[in-house]
């Protein structure tokens, strides 16, 4: 790499800017900025294409993405919660993670007066501390050419004829445990029956993959025929030529909502509200549905009929969906993780 004089000058200007960034009223007041803590990959890219560039940048606000998977960002939010100035102006997390972090008093209660699009949010998804961005449902994915009798519920994964063909994504340990709990007669607030079911699944040679992407590879090579997964992922995988169909399990399942919130120690709260508003714009919502198969969280987002047909849920299916019991998950999370690691995976 060669360094041109211009680049060197820009570099030293940037260094100067970062030095003065700590001085209130000097450099920072002139540049409007919003720091978004988000996943990378498709999600981050879609944020950039459909929210940052067309909706936020034209308002004179520079958007900086701080990219990581959810867990390290959660840890950062928790570690910084006592600090006067935090890293993020916007934190993107799933509903369960968001509830966990919100319980530590990390987020600013949303001022609906500052949120122009607040009234468009689907009431069932509204929260006092976060706006819903997109959502999907937990479903059972299966390979229709191998699983010839379509499954109806989570319990079908325990059919001995699918020995060695059920796969789990390791990062979805809590969701996988939920599916085992429901198959074993448990409930949203009682994962205890999952222990017995998971140990049965272990003796049925269940396969565990380190990431959703690795699981997708296994579904593609038909090494795995059945897995609990988000409907939106199933939609994306189908589009990528992976042979899967889905069923909303008869035992019941939950919706997953990806949310965004403003930490109390955000340094650019006004810009953060502008960003949240942009996330709720119909055009941005429709783009996430089209590319990733997630459902809009606002009442007025147009959805092309072909996509709506693939990712929407019938009324009967919607009746099987509920919100997770966040308080139960908050209390039982470490026990669920411990069982998953020490008993099921060991």
């Amino acid at each position, binding site marked *: 790499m060669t360094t041109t004089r211009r680049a060197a000058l820009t570099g030293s200007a940037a260094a100067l800017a970062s030095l003065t960034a700590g001085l209130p009223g000097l450099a920072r007041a002139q540049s409007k900025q919003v720091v978004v803590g988000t996943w990378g990959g498709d999600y981050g890219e879609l944020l950039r294409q459909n929210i940052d560039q067309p909706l936020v940048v034209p308002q004179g606000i520079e958007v900086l993405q701080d990219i990581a998977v959810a*867990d*390290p960002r*959660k*840890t950062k939010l*928790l570690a910084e919660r006592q600090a006067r100035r935090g890293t993020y102006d916007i934190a993107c997390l799933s509903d369960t993670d968001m509830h*966990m972090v919100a*319980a*530590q008093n990390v987020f600013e209660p949303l001022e609906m007066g500052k949120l122009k699009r607040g009234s468009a949010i689907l009431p069932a998804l509204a929260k006092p501390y976060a706006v819903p961005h997109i959502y999907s449902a937990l479903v059972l994915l299966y390979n229709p050419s191998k699983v010839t009798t379509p499954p109806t519920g989570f319990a079908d994964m325990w059919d001995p004829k699918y020995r060695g063909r059920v796969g789990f994504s*390791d990062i979805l340990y809590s969701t996988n445990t939920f599916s085992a709990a429901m198959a074993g007669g448990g409930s949203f607030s009682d994962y205890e029956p999952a222990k017995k079911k998971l140990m049965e699944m272990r003796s049925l040679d269940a396969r*565990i*993959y*380190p990431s959703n992407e690795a699981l997708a*590879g296994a579904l593609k*090579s038909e*090494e795995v025929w059945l897995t609990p997964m988000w409907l939106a992922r199933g939609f994306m995988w189908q589009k990528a030529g992976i042979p899967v169909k889905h069923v909303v399990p008869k035992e019941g399942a939950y919706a997953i909502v990806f949310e965004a919130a403003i930490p109390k120690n955000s340094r650019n709260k006004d810009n953060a509200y502008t960003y949240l508003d942009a996330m709720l714009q119909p055009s941005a919502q429709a783009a996430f549905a089209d590319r990733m198969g997630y459902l809009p969280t606002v009442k007025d987002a147009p959805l092309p009929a072909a996509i709506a047909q693939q990712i929407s849920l019938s009324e009967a299916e919607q009746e099987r969906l509920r919100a997770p019991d966040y308080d139960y998950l*908050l*209390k*039982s*999370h*470490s026990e669920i*993780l*411990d069982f998953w*690691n*020490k008993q099921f*995976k*060991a």
Partner: protein
Amino acid sequence: MAALVLPAGLLVVMLLVAPMALLARISLNRFSPTELMVEATTAENYWRAVQDPYYQQVLGTTLGVALGCTVLALALGFPAAYWLARMESRWKSLATILVLFPLLVGNVVRSAGWMALLGNEGAINAALMGAGITGGPLPLLYNGGAVVVGIVAVVLPYMILTLAAVIEGIPRQAEEAAANLGGRPMTVFRRVVLPLALPGVVAGSVLVFILCMNAYATPVLLGGPQFKMMAPAVYDQFVRGNNWPFGAALAFILLAVTLVLTVVGSTLLGRRYRAA
């Protein structure tokens, strides 16, 4: 003169000692799912980690992998280091750069390469199945073997360079004298080269052992979800379980075990060296 140590010393205090002290304090706190942690002065996190068969097994796996990789790196590294040290051609600096070459690629990227090689649809399995040698893919990835191969590939350059530096200091005349007195090559190696190279063996082994004990990316990526070593277990407690006190206790246990074994190991080897 003492002032020369000041900048580095301050940096170490700020970036290492202070955070470690904080971590030590956290390890004595109590975990609470709703409040994250509760201020306390209790040894229960340590007690739990020591007693729990799962963590005993994780520590056992870590020790096994670290010792195995150290021995393997020594066995593979010594001949290469000897060759490098005794090299006199103008290619010597090129050879040294080649040894260093693997370090130019980060651990994660290197592991991704191993995954492309060892995976079910990886190059090796594709070749084996293409040639009709195996019917289905062999499980090469996501097990201890893959981790050992991956880690050895990372630590080998450290071992070779440390050994080569010491072997270069051994006068060639010592070997020639031994050979002249009738020593066979193996005897010369065992009674002359090895004892003189022992400080390098100790330094290289200690360096490699510490690196192996704390390996993170390689066990996570090549070991898969069911293979656990200590560093990933510590990360799991902090980041997935939000249990900072227990994670901190695990971290200190890993530190203590590594420190004790390093001191004991190098003392024992050092004593042999003096005896020889």
